[in-house]
């Protein structure tokens, strides 16, 4: 070993301070998820659930859509936290966890699209939903990125992208529970397609904030 490397090792060892070990991905995720649930609960005071929510919860397709969305939120949150560790906490499968929920979610939307006959009336508003989702996504996204930044991700693009998908699903879920519309065209265009955009923004944010 060269003198320089030996000197560096000696310096690093001498200046080493005790550090708090990072919690495992599941614990990190649960922290974020609990905060997201509290946030969702608080939001119901501002945007109360749609008046026919009790009835809608008996509709299998609505229920499947909401459950699939919750699964996307949980799996992508777990995946993002695993991605914040250099070795993925040696749980590579966690990174791929969102694949099945996302496929399930897309399938449910496709079934809803086919079942929308006669089509449900479109709401009078359009992009206002996207504005709301953006506003609802900012806090969970900031929280998730702040948490990931404290770790040492070597897949920062992916971590940022998946973190934003998890955060945007909080916004989408809030609106899906609160907004009194079942027009599938409106839901796909103004609620769910923007999630892809959030993912792309997340990739950029990951590069900006998670690179170390």
């Amino acid at each position, binding site marked *: *070993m060269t003198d320089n*490397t030996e000197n560096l090792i000696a310096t*690093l060892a001498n200046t080493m301070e005790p550090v708090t070990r990072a919690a495992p991905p599941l614990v990190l995720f649960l922290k974020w998820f609990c905060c997201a649930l509290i946030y969702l609960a608080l939001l119901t005071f501002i945007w109360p659930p749609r008046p026919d929510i009790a009835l809608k919860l008996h509709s299998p397709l609505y229920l499947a859509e909401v459950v699939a969305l919750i699964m996307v939120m949980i799996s992508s949150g777990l995946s993002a936290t695993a991605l914040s560790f250099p070795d*993925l906490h040696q749980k590579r499968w966690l990174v791929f966890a969102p694949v099945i929920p996302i496929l399930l979610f897309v399938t449910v939307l496709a079934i809803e699209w086919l079942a929308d006959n006669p089509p449900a009336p479109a709401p009078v508003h359009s992009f206002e939903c996207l504005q709301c989702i953006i506003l609802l996504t900012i806090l969970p996204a900031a929280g998730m990125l702040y948490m990931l930044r404290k770790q*040492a991700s*070597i897949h920062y693009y992916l971590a940022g992208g998946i973190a934003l998908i998890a955060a945007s699903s909080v916004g989408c879920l809030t609106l899906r529970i609160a907004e009194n519309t079942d027009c599938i065209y409106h839901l796909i265009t103004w609620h769910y397609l923007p999630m892809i955009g959030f993912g792309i923004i997340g990739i950029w944010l990951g590069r900006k904030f998670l690179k170390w």
Partner: protein
Amino acid sequence: MQAGTDNILKELMRQALAGDKRAYAAALSGTARMLRPYLCKRLSNRNEIEDLLQEILISIHKARHTYDGQRPYTPWAFAIARYRLHDHLRAHYADHLRFAGELSEADNISATDVTESALSYESIKEEVQKLPEKQARILHLIHGDGYTAKEVASKIGMKESAVKVAAHRAYKILKKKLAE
């Protein structure tokens, strides 16, 4: 053998995380010994290997809080090493591409703008002197003393291509200054 090394390093790292500085030094030395052959297979320049190894050790130091002392140590250390190696190679090839680009630009410019400049060297001499020392010297030799790029290269002990690139960078700076 690999499992043995992993167990030793894992144990040392566990002690290090508990605050044992000697164990930490031993863990880093063991990590350096483990990573050097990996880097030697991928890089040829000895100084480059040593620089990168040091960078990896610093990264391991910075990210040590993400290792819990429970899971295997080597996959964690190698993940960081691969990350830094890819970063290094990306920067290395980007430099090469930039240099090749500047070289081809320099070839075009030195054939036209430089030799047939509408400005006399004397009129911009003051601006030339404000350039970095090496660039100013090269321009002085080419335009003040009339040497070719090849002659300048042998005179100051540089490659001809490097002289052209340095001159090209200097022309860019001068062009910007004179346009102001």
